[in-house]
């Protein structure tokens, strides 16, 4: 795989549950070293899409390729180069932060794990809670620990489901700066699902607007804001969610 080829390629991806298409034929690519945001309301298909990218979920049809490997059939070849965090998935509460990072570090085959944990603790300001059970942390601390787990193997591809959910503005801003720094320092590719429009405007190179399992629009945040005649991405999101303005024109043209 050449250095120019995309980190993630999604082609005609469909996930069907009974009579419902949770993801309904989406296609996109994520260039290496870029940040792509999946935006959409609850039930739009963001988490389902991420789950298929991780190989946790097998598509009904279509394909997801990460770093050149089909995630439905060959995920084992690339999982060591990826990582993930989500507020809906916890670390074992009874293990301390340090124990959790040791377990996952070993699962990912991280060398010099002790040094790596120390570096993450320093970067993510976890020194004071390393020996505290993960279940006894505040929401902000849990988010930072989840990020530490997600960064333990210095992944080339990082998938984040709502990385700043339930964080105060200060901590949220701090996390966004961290992700920017990680992407620039490591050349990592980041795909994130978020409801935080300001976060997407700041971080994302491209935003994919999802609704009812489909990508209804896409582009750089600034480009989307301009094409919808809005001043911020949140208004673009609302236009799409409520099928008004430019979104209504697009929907009409598509039908």
């Amino acid at each position: 795989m050449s250095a120019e080829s995309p980190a993630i390629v999604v082609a005609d991806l469909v996930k069907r549950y009974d009579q419902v298409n949770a993801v309904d034929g989406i296609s996109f690519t994520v260039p290496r070293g870029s940040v792509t945001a999946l935006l959409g309301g609850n039930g739009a298909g963001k988490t389902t899409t991420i789950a298929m990218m991780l190989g946790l979920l097998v598509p009904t049809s279509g394909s997801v390729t990460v770093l050149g490997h089909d995630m439905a059939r060959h995920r084992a070849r690339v999982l060591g180069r990826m990582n993930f965090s989500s507020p809906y998935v916890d670390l074992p509460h009874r293990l301390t932060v340090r124990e959790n990072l040791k377990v996952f570090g070993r699962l990912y085959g991280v060398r010099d794990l002790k040094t790596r944990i120390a570096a993450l603790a320093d970067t993510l300001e976890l020194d004071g809670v390393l020996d505290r059970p993960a279940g006894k942390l505040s929401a902000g601390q849990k988010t930072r620990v989840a990020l530490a787990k997600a960064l333990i193997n210095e992944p080339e591809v990082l998938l984040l489901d709502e990385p700043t959910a339930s964080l105060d503005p200060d901590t949220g801003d701090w996390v966004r700066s961290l992700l920017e720094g990680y992407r620039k320092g490591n050349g990592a590719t980041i795909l994130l699902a978020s409801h935080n429009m300001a976060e997407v405007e700041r971080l994302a190179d491209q935003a994919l607007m999802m609704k009812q399992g489909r990508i209804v629009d896409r582009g750089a945040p600034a480009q989307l804001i301009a094409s919808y005649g809005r001043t911020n991405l949140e208004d673009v999101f609302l236009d799409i969610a409520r099928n008004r303005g430019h979104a209504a024109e697009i929907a009409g043209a598509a039908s």
Partner: protein
Amino acid sequence: MGFSPGRVVALMGRYWYVLKGSVPRLLDIAYWPTVQMIVWGFMSMYLREQSGLIAGAFGLLIAAVLLWDVLFRGQLGLALCFLEDVWSRNLANLFVSPLRPSEMGLAMIAMSLVRTLIGIVPASILAIWFFGFSVYSLGLALVGFFFTLIMFGWAIGLAVSGLILRWGAGAENLAWGVMFAIMPLAAVYYPVTVLPGWLQPVAWAMPPAYAFEGMRMVLIHHQVDAGLMARGLALDIVYLGLGFLVFIRCFELARRRGLILQQGE
């Protein structure tokens, strides 16, 4: 990426950290085998006074209850490892790592062995102290009986874990109850010949009957039937293979139906 012993050890570490960090859990593992051994030990003492046969094989009931616990705890110990990750909503974290389902199965097997030994060894030592009966008097045959039983427990534990992955919280009770459904056919406290004729082939189709019959042969007749033990272990290999197959198939089904992310919610 091929099989990794390092990942098996990493996951064993996860389960060990939970155990060592919780004195109540450690005590709980040893508590039930000890209580059962004491109850059956006193029962044995009473029966010894009533029956010459029992007097000649005093340790039958104590050995039976200790070996039954190997079977029960072997299965439960494995299923509890899996349930720890279900309850802590950690399964998705594990399965987006390079960890393979087969490696997870091996880690759970290893921890089941640790948990079973934590439960059984203290009870067996107390049996010597309280009742003067040593299960270790079975000699090397004890190793054969131990592995015949625990391997079957592992097979059932893997299948139960797979079913929990498939059916979710509704299947959790299987972890505690399934062995009691097998118990009447396992010939724990009585020989297989006590069962109705049509049930005896069913009993002989499962490894526990071979272990318990072998145990009684040693204690009553002072003989070791190596052929009996070999047949039990051979059946174990088949059941263990089936257990892994169920676990891995349920994992693949969970991937198709999106069940991994739903666990614990």
